[in-house]
């Protein structure tokens, strides 16, 4: 006897196409103010990004990971969450911090090499930048399990890159979330590259790629919950799908994996040289699909965007970022802080080493 005992589907969602045309049936109900806010945050992230890049080039901060082209993924998801939901970023979701009222100063301190940057304001409900990729997935799962135990209606929202889905912790995190029916939403920022290793396997008989799975969204199926792929350059699609996933989670219906399909336009970080491994023509093609331009067209059609609005948003972003730069550059780290935050109370051993440092 043999029969099919399992089959699955993976949905793809796009609401705004590259020309700013909207799929009326799927268009989310957002107020004019909310739509303008989505745009505002995307602009803020881009202005922050350009500024940080310039600071890196002048040696005023260290190695930096640009977010250019991924704004819709970051803004759409965080906008869909409530302020009580906890966010687990990796290192590219700069605006997620800003949307949680973390000052620009903090981000620049972090990238500028001071721990103070991740001294996050109270109730920002966001974890610090996470560099060992994939590891934060378990924190997203654990937070959701804790919310469930404490009977709170909050969710966790975890971001990982496409390559991070290859780590053990990513898979373990999804499995924990699935088994406990935890209120967790996992966002894959599929920008199609690790550093130089492509997401997709193009050799029929060998590796050199991240995964042979047709989509990354379908990885959820193996853990017993749904995966959806969305156009990651479409902020309305990201927002709608994440919103729905969070509502489902809040109702006790378990986790969701959302794969946001996008493209990494910049180098991996400022230390990377992508001309060694990818064709600049493909990057140019993807540049045409970038999320801000498309959303601007949509707002224009809805008469929510004009030059005046644009300059006001740009000016606000610039003010906010410039002030952050100034504050960050005025900051001098205190060397003894090296010792003072390792434990709640300085141990005798560290106290001695601290004295030694001061002498």
């Amino acid at each position, binding site marked *: 006897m043999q029969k099919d005992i399992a089959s699955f589907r993976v949905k793809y969602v796009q609401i705004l196409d590259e020309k700013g045309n909207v799929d009326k049936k799927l268009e989310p109900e957002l107020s004019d103010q909310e739509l303008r806010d989505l745009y505002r945050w995307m602009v803020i992230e881009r202005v922050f990004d350009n500024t940080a890049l310039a600071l890196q080039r002048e040696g005023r901060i*260290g*190695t930096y990971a640009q977010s250019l082209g991924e704004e819709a993924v970051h803004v759409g998801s965080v906008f869909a969450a409530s302020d009580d939901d906890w966010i687990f970023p990796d*290192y590219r979701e700069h605006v997620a911090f800003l949307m949680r009222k973390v000052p620009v100063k903090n981000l620049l301190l*972090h990238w*500028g*090499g*001071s*721990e103070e940057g991740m001294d996050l304001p109270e109730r920002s409900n966001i974890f610090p*930048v996470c*560099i*060992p*990729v*994939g590891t934060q997935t378990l924190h997203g799962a654990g937070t959701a399990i804790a919310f469930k135990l404490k009977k709170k209606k909050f969710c966790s929202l975890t971001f990982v890159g496409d*390559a*991070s889905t*290859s*780590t*053990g*912790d990513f898979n373990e995190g999804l499995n924990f979330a699935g088994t406990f029916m935890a209120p967790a939403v996992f966002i894959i920022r599929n920008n199609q590259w*690790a*550093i*130089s*290793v492509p997401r997709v396997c193009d*050799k029929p008989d*060998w*590796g*050199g*790629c*991240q*995964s042979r799975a047709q989509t990354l969204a379908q990885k959820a199926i193996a853990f017993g919950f749904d995966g959806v792929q969305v156009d990651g350059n479409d902020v309305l699609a990201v927002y709608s799908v994440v919103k729905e996933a969070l509502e489902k989670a809040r109702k006790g219906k378990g986790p969701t994996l959302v794969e946001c399909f996008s493209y990494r336009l910049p180098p991996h970080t400022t*230390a*990377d040289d992508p001309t*060694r*491994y990818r064709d600049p023509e493909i990057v140019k093609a993807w540049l045409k699909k970038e999320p801000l331009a498309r959303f601007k067209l949509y707002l224009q059609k809805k008469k929510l965007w004009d030059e005046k609005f644009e300059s006001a948003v740009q000016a606000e972003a610039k003010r906010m970022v410039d002030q952050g730069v100034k504050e960050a550059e005025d900051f001098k*780290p205190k*060397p003894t*802080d*090296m*010792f003072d935050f*390792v434990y709640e109370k300085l141990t005798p*051993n*560290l106290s001695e*080493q601290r004295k030694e*440092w001061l002498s």
Partner: protein
Amino acid sequence: MAKLSIVEAVKDALDCEMERDSSVVVLGEDVGLNGGVFRATDGLFAKYGDRRVIDTPLSESGIVGVSIAMAVQGLKPVAEIQFDGFTYPAMDQLFSHAARLRNRTRGRYTCPLVVRFPYGGGIRALEHHNESPETYFVHTPGLKVVIPSNPYDTKGLLIASIRDPDPVVFMEPKRIYRSFRDEVPENAYVVEIGKAKVVREGTDITLISWGAMVRECLKAADDAAVQGVKVEVIDVRTLSPCDYDAIFASVQKTGRCIVVHEAPRTLGFGAEICARVQEKLLLYLKAPVLRVTGYDTPFPYFKLENEYLPGPDKIKKAMAQVMKF
């Protein structure tokens, strides 16, 4: 002879061994077309192809676990872990399997693999890119631990590691990857694992170190020479197995010993050297054996890294202390 930097010497060693022995394969994240984030495998993909220079999925546990099994099957994997801080996800495979397979099967199965990675601070890097985790590996029976401090040794020790019948953890001081060049023979040659090197002779103090700290010791020794203090500097080169004979011979002569390392002080490899020296040479000692090390704190973000790292000033302070004891 060509003049090579440390990172070029790594590539040269890999190239020599890959050419000589078709069972040698390189694997890791971005080691292929990209040539590794530090370019330590630059050009090898073009020369040897994707079956021998293998870009893996992003999983350090995967890289090491797969390498163990490839080694058992007669291949000679040289696995690259991109940075020190990302060896941690691979610890289980290294500790529970690579280190124990020989012993557990009474020699039936062995895994002669090399796990190499850039380590240490001083390059203004992000968090988790500055670690000095040598103690964990030295503390694990079954692993060998090799740390070169110059291009010549890098090539010879890496070739020795690839040819070694046991798993070798090969740590490369990234801070001095490109700081200077040495004459490096074009042919393959071996620097024996388990042999320290006296890199500067002296009769008053023995400074013991490895990796990037050897150069800091040499700078401190130069300064001390001006004051008339003759400092001997030992580059340990291989921490496991460690050449205690070389250390004892020097300390017996000088009677003063200071160990310098970047890793945190508590249970850093310096602690082991101090213990051995006093076990063996108590009556030869003219002063307590001291350590100049990183502090028992996480490696700080880069604004404070120079406050954390040992350097000539801290070493000179310790030298003054042992001289006036």
